[in-house]
């Protein structure tokens, strides 16, 4: 087997696998009941979050960047 043929096959295989990667390990929107549970939110304790942020801020100056857009349920 020539190296070029091998590389071509490998590239094709990788491209094919990449195209279907989004279907492999994903929690489907209808399976996100546990993720949508309010207990899964990172700000369930109103006191804990500002305290943690204060610790991060005063220790490392690494304030911010901790938020994410939207919740986990994937609604809309």
């Amino acid at each position: 087997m020539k190296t070029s043929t091998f590389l071509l096959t490998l590239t094709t295989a990788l491209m094919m696998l990449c195209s279907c990667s989004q279907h492999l390990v994903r929690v489907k929107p209808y399976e996100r009941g546990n993720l949508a549970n309010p207990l899964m939110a990172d700000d369930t304790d109103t006191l804990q979050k500002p305290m943690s942020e204060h610790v991060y801020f005063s220790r490392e100056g690494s304030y911010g960047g901790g938020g994410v857009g939207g919740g986990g349920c994937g609604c809309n």
Partner: protein
Amino acid sequence: MKTILLITALLCSSMMTSMAKQPSAGQKLPSLSQLLPGASIPKTKGKVVLVDFWASWCGPCKASFPCFTRLHNKYASKGLVIIAIGVDTDIKKYKAFVAKHKSPFPMVHDSSHKAAGFFNPPAMPSSYLVDRNGVIRYIHKGFKGAKTEALYEKEILALLAK
């Protein structure tokens, strides 16, 4: 070397074939009674059907129910059938939601996720609007209040007129 190539090709082909497919506009609506065994599905032959996937934990799903009730009250007599499929894994939560909302249209429970697995709804809620010939015409992802309701109404009117 040949063996490695053969294994790679086989893996690729098996993964490609196992990829989750989902119905698209233009496809025929599958038999819901087969996907939801035991559920009482209303007759849909010759009707415009709105199949909605919802869950009790999904905020936009809750917001969509008053809209579906209005649509049902307005167009059920003209040939619209709304079927709301709940995908809650916890049957207690499903029953509590159904009891609370008391919808005039049928609500069924997809306990085994057979229907959800087939439709593979891209978001929660997702709905499929089907014409009188049983062909899926429109697919809605999510619910955005009055904007989505106006769109539903426009599409339903167009499908009822055919």
